[in-house]
């Protein structure tokens, strides 16, 4: 049943060895799902993908579920945007026995969002998001729910197998999470497209640098007040401009983490200092000062810089008091 899902579903034990991978997972990684059982996670993902996911894997194995959107390259070499969830698998005593990973490819949705330029396109986008929510419900959630019900029915005829019980709970959790995703898509039809703007900026910078970017966002971007969204765009523009001054950049990673209390935007690369001096990030620091946030820049002597902008989320009604004055001209970015 799980092999018919378009979404990737796989489970791993605490030693990060594969317990189960569905057909979509095998297709994504270019591996035989049956041969994946017992395979170390790092070997299945490959070094680069494993490095990108390591923090989320560790969090799930520490009992903390993670959900995020991320741009990655699959086995076929195609750049895909994915919505991923890392769910801890728990024993009866609450101990973590492994993790369940589920990944849904949302590239088409995002590409349509990127093409959203006017009111007509926005209406089309709303309809498309509605259709996607319907698809996620009618195909992914319903199939997963059916698989869970069948598993549950099978367990009624024999003494419950602890592994099957855990799988059942994981499926139920995934159903709950999918429900949240569907509702988030449906109830965010009037979103301001912050994700799309950020995505486009990162893509532009990555193209200029000749690298494949890793873009991750966590939490609800739609909950970011519009004025803070404009600030984040300005900060990202400045941070990416700084990266383009570095030499031999082979990796560019951008992460936006949103909680109801604060937002953190992190831009990191592995480049060496360039001929031009490192910028002092005047605009970013000024915006952080106005918002009660902070900027941190760390450099690795072996090469690589991480710039982080963290700020509290203000009350939306009063946020226009801190009008962002971007360091760059943003009008040119809204192509």
């Amino acid at each position, binding site marked *: 049943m799980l092999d018919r899902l378009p979404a990737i579903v796989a489970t791993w034990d605490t030693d990060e060895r594969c317990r189960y991978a569905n057909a979509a997972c095998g297709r994504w990684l270019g591996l035989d799902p049956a041969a994946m059982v017992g395979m170390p996670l790092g070997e299945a993902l490959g070094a680069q993908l494993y490095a990108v996911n390591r923090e989320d894997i560790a969090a799930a194995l520490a009992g903390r579920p993670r959900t995020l959107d991320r741009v990655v390259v699959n086995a076929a070499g195609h750049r895909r945007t994915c919505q991923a969830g890392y769910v801890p698998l728990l024993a009866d005593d609450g101990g973590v026995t492994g993790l369940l990973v589920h990944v849904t490819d949302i590239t088409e949705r995002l590409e349509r969002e990127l093409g959203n330029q006017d009111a007509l396109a926005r209406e089309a986008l709303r309809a498309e998001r509605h259709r996607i929510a319907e698809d996620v419900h009618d195909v992914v959630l319903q199939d997963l729910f059916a*698989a869970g*019900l069948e598993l549950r*029915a099978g367990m009624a005829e024999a003494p419950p197998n602890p592994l099957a019980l855990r799988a059942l709970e994981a499926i*139920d959790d995934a*159903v709950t999470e999918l*429900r949240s995703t569907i*509702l988030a898509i*449906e*109830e965010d039809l009037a979103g301001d497209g912050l994700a799309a703007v950020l995505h486009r900026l990162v893509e532009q910078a990555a193209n200029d640098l000749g690298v494949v970017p890793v873009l991750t966002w966590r939490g609800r971007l739609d909950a970011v007040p519009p004025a803070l969204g404009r600030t984040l765009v300005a900060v990202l523009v400045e941070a990416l401009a700084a990266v383009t001054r570095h030499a031999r950049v082979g990796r560019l990673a951008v992460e936006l983490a949103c909680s109801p209390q604060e937002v953190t935007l992190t831009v990191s690369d592995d480049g060496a200092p360039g001929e031009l001096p490192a910028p002092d990030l005047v605009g970013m620091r000024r915006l952080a000062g106005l918002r009660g946030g902070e900027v941190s820049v760390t450099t690795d002597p072996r090469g690589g810089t991480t710039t982080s902008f963290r700020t509290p989320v203000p009350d939306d009604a009063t946020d226009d008091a801190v009008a962002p004055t971007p360091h760059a001209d943003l009008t040119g970015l809204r192509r």
Partner: protein
Amino acid sequence: MDEESAGGPGTATITRPARVVLVEDHPAVREQLTALLRAAGLDVVAVAGDLRGGHDAVRTARPEVAVVDNRLPDGRGIDLCALLAREAPEVALIVHSGAVTDAETERALALGVAAVVPKSLRGSELLAAVRHAAGRSRP
């Protein structure tokens, strides 16, 4: 799962199982939910896979309870409930859905729907809602 009470020892009356119509488009979900309801002692008298079929089934079978998936191939389960609330007010209606928005829940309850139950593998919430609704719909 609890069996529907059939009366205590020494009682002469036998409680008839509550009659239920299930409207659910996914074949495997429909099959498994039917088994779940029957295992709980409920009498699933008809099943349907779409709004039109559900409408016909409820009007023909006149069950005590109709369990309706909200997302059906030919429309929203809540729209079917709106129709049934007028045509068969004696049938208790339950919306059972993978995802129902707050606005839809509000509308369903305003129509007189007995409960809006999210799909869960535990099943206990659905069974409790059906039993409660069956108790209310009987004279």
